[in-house]
């Protein structure tokens, strides 16, 4: 496999890469206000990784995207999601304890047309972040695994 693509692609990638990341994090952060959320934002961020891999080849991967770290991040994201669901166990699993409580993300939502209150929805933004982390790391893992390929084991 050719290691990297032409200079045009590499330059454009350098320009667009941070923008994609920012947009992805925006989608994750505003998941409770606008269409989108953890999965969509995570997929956007992961698409930046995909662009990086395609433009610079697998060799540039070394030292930048550590698959073991990505795996751990994915599991931490999943565990965080599960933990947030557990927070509501006093009432029911997934019960939103922060909504309307006045504390972080506990703001009241005005009725009628409004620009959207970022400081609302209780545990949902945290769940979006957890899912976003999991999807980002998970898709990046899949990409790396598919590109690098699994090593052949000579056992059994």
């Amino acid at each position, binding site marked *: 496999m050719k290691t990297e693509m032409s200079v045009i692609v590499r330059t454009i990638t350098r320009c667009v890469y941070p923008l994609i990341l920012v947009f992805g994090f925006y989608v994750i952060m505003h998941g409770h206000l*606008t*269409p989108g959320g953890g*999965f969509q934002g995570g*997929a956007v961020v992961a698409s930046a990784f995909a662009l990086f891999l395609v433009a610079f080849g697998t060799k540039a991967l070394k030292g930048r995207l550590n698959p073991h770290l990505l795996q751990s991040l994915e599991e931490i994201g999943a565990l965080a999601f599960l933990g947030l669901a557990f927070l509501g166990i006093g009432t029911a699993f997934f019960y939103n304890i922060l909504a309307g409580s006045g504390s972080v993300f506990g703001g009241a939502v005005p009725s009628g*047309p409004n620009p*959207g209150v970022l400081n609302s929805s209780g545990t949902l933004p945290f769940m979006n972040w957890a899912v976003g982390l999991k999807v980002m790391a998970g898709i990046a893992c*899949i990409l790396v695994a*598919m590109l690098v390929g*699994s090593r*052949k084991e000579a056992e059994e």
Partner: protein
Amino acid sequence: MSAVGSLPFVVSMLLVILGLYALLFKRNLIKMVIGVSLIETGVNLFLVTLGYRTAGVAPIYTYAPATTVRVLPTPQALTLTSIVIGLATTALLLSFAVLIYRHYGTLDVSKIKELRG
């Protein structure tokens, strides 16, 4: 329901049938994965269409006046979930296709039949 209103249903069923055609008659594993994705797209389109209301706005749009008609959020939630699941299944299918190519040296489905009889 008008003829135009039922068009999305027709298209979604067409997508399902196209996908089934790909699964039944295409010999390349990658094309079969595409067939599975087509069926999935058809079903997703069907679900989204179920919740659509004429001139409705997205149910999460905070600037919408209170009187506006909104589309049903439930089918959209279903579709999103189904898209996420579809991503996982497609990734898994493609990974297995990569493995099969590595072991068998071919992607022709009629040659990948060590397990038979």
